[in-house]
């Protein structure tokens, strides 16, 4: 039935433009989800922690960009000879690094003492962390939306009827760079240590791998990725108002992406993120006019997709199957 509706709409005059716009928009949204999911998966894989503070950390990253780029103008104030775009990028990188540091601090203070404790007890702790981070950042940065002051503004590339925002292109590019850097990182010595720890923590310790250090790095990377996701969900067009106290909720929208790909799969996070992004945007573009679906159907498409995937593959598309032995 739904397929029939989609086909019916696919033969209308502007069909190609509509499809193209949805595709571009879906890929850009998918990239944000993928980055958020990736950070989540890395933290989970290395430390077995379901990080409910991911959204809070993502928003923190975006707020840091506001703080560095528009309030303090750091490091731009010393580098005023550089073009504005470069100055802003440096502020953003600084913000990402500070967020990574926040991740490391969280790990050190509240996650480290919980190593080996029940999964959900640790998850609850991250929830407490989320409350604290969000309240304090909002107190400091204010309740209202804050623009990131990014150099792309509301710029749009126009290809006939297909219109793609500059920020959408940048989002996808940054996501690709982040994935590339991660792939390189996993081949390094520290990256190998991380994979070993994820596979068998005790055996990794026995090799002299400092598990604490690995945990800290995983949280650092996870938080940095969250920050990237937070930043690009706070720019034009999707986050045109900038970062708000509700930016943190984007993490919940990325949850189905994590599960669809498989909780412990890096490539799964990317595939899952893309799938969810595309599914949401296509559902919104093509099913929005279907009245019997009620309002806000696009918002649960990801969850329905997740359930469908889990019924076929109970551990997600790429997730490792739990070994069940007597």
């Amino acid at each position, binding site marked *: 039935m739904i397929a029939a509706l989609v086909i019916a709409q696919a033969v209308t005059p502007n069909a190609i433009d509509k499809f193209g716009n949805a595709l571009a928009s879906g890929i850009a949204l998918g990239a944000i989800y993928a980055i958020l999911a990736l950070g989540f998966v890395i933290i989970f894989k290395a430390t077995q922690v379901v990080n409910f503070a991911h959204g809070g950390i993502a928003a923190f990253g975006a707020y840091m960009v506001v703080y560095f780029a*528009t309030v303090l103008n750091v490091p731009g104030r010393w580098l005023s000879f550089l073009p504005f775009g470069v100055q802003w990028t440096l502020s953003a990188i600084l913000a990402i690094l500070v967020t990574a540091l926040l991740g490391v601090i969280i790990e050190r203070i509240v996650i480290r003492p919980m190593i080996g404790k029940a999964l959900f007890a640790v998850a609850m702790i991250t929830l407490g962390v989320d409350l604290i981070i969000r309240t304090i950042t909002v107190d400091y940065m204010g309740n209202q*939306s804050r623009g990131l002051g990014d150099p792309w503004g509301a710029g749009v590339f126009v290809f006939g009827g297909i219109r793609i925002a500059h920020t959408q292109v940048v989002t996808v590019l940054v996501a690709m760079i982040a994935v590339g850097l991660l792939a390189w990182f996993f081949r390094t010595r520290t990256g190998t240590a991380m994979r070993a720890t994820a596979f068998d923590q005790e055996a990794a310790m026995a090799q002299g791998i400092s598990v604490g250090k690995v945990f800290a790095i995983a949280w650092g990377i996870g938080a940095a990725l969250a920050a990237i996701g937070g930043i690009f969900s706070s720019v034009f067009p999707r986050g045109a108002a900038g970062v708000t106290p509700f930016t943190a909720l984007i993490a919940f929208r990325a949850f189905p992406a994590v599960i669809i790909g498989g909780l412990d799969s890096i490539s799964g996070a990317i595939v899952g993120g893309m799938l969810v992004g595309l599914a949401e945007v296509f559902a*919104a573009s093509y099913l929005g006019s279907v009245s019997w679906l009620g309002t806000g159907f696009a918002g649960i498409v990801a969850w329905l997709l997740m359930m469908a995937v889990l019924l076929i593959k109970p551990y997600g598309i790429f997730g490792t199957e739990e070994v069940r032995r007597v």
Partner: protein
Amino acid sequence: MRKRLSFLVMIVVIALVAAACSSSGDDDTTTTADSGGSATTTAPAAATTTAPAAATTTAPPDTSGDIKTGRGVDADAKVITIGMLADLTGLFAPLVVDITDSQLAFWDDVNANGGIDGWTVEIVVEDTNYNVEQHIEKYEKIRNDVLALGQSTGSPTNVAALPKYKEDSMVFIPLSWYSGWAVPDFDGGLAMEQYTNYCIEAMNVLGFANEMGAKTVALATFPGDYGQDGAAGVKKAVDFYGMELVYDGEAAVIPGQDQTEVVTGIVSSGADWTFLTTNPSTAAEIIGGAAQAGYTGAWTGSTPSYDFRLLDSPVAPIIDASYYQSGYNVPWGTDVPGAAKMTEVLTAAYPDRRPSDAFAIGWSYSLSLQQAIKAAIDSGDITPEGFAAAVNSLTAVDFGGLAPSQSYAGSSNEFVQRASAIYKPSLEEYTAAGGAEQTLSQEGGGTTGSTESPSGGFFTSDAAAAYDFSAACYEL
């Protein structure tokens, strides 16, 4: 065990240090919800209600001198306690924090200058988080200690608490412009609604759009009373003016979700004018998405859909070009008689804060409450019932030009407020005054960028004037 303990100490220390840090360098960004001030000075009274909860509603009213007093009024000390159930940490906190702070500053000023005929007004603030259960629990906490509610955020919260308000004869100022608050059958005559409601506001906006030559209209709103009350007004006005509703996104904007559906609807309808009933960040998302897709029509949103801080965001040029701001009261920086006092008091109280249109909302709320209390004192009856009667006898609450004067007497159709205004945000004026760097203490108090009124001050559209208001536009 010792290791664990040291971790605990670390956490507490870090959390507190982080909090302290945020208290140290708060320079130009202060929009914090510090409205706890007066709450903390007076709240212990509310907190320690250890006296047996013999419901004060049944307690016999004190009669001191010739003035009848009751709940929330201390006749000996001449103190009247007013409660505020404000959303200081939830969905509408961005708006409500400014409003609440403005109210607190107002009452501090009134008390410092002799109060109302020698009566001091104390404020008890409770945070409701825009959550129905929390609102009711907080109401229960203060109900025996306050004469009335000087502010009560939200429609769902107030509707849920309405039976209790009625039981207590609790007059309340709803921070919600639902059309039902002007219907005594619905609110028991207890709601001291301010300004016009979402429904009539939408009619005024469409009247203005009609004058500007709009023929086709698109509509996108939150689900619920806020959005759908506005949507009802749009639809009535569309019929009245013979316009065409080309996209009906009533209740289609779900907060926190992706807005592609609404954006696609608006863009493909190609409407001349789009009316939104959302919150500012969602409005920006929709305006941004539509701009990306090449939409060129004009925009207006219900008052809470717009925030001047959008002029700091990437959609600022679009707002500057094609957004018309709907307003109940005058924007910050307008030169009207009532504004001078407000600017003076708020600048003294919050010199480092940014200007905000919401300050005027809080200020005029307090003005109407002040006049209501005065009327009650004059009538010699400050019991809850006496106060409610005093409120319903007010015929011309004066806001000194901040907003059109308000009446609470007679039938709904007689007293419902029908006037509102349309403003044009100007990026140029905003930037010239210092943009995001503005503070209240700067020369002239700063600006929120909207001063010009293309609608010619407060006006009532033909649709609104002709509308026979006898029931809520959107029934709950």
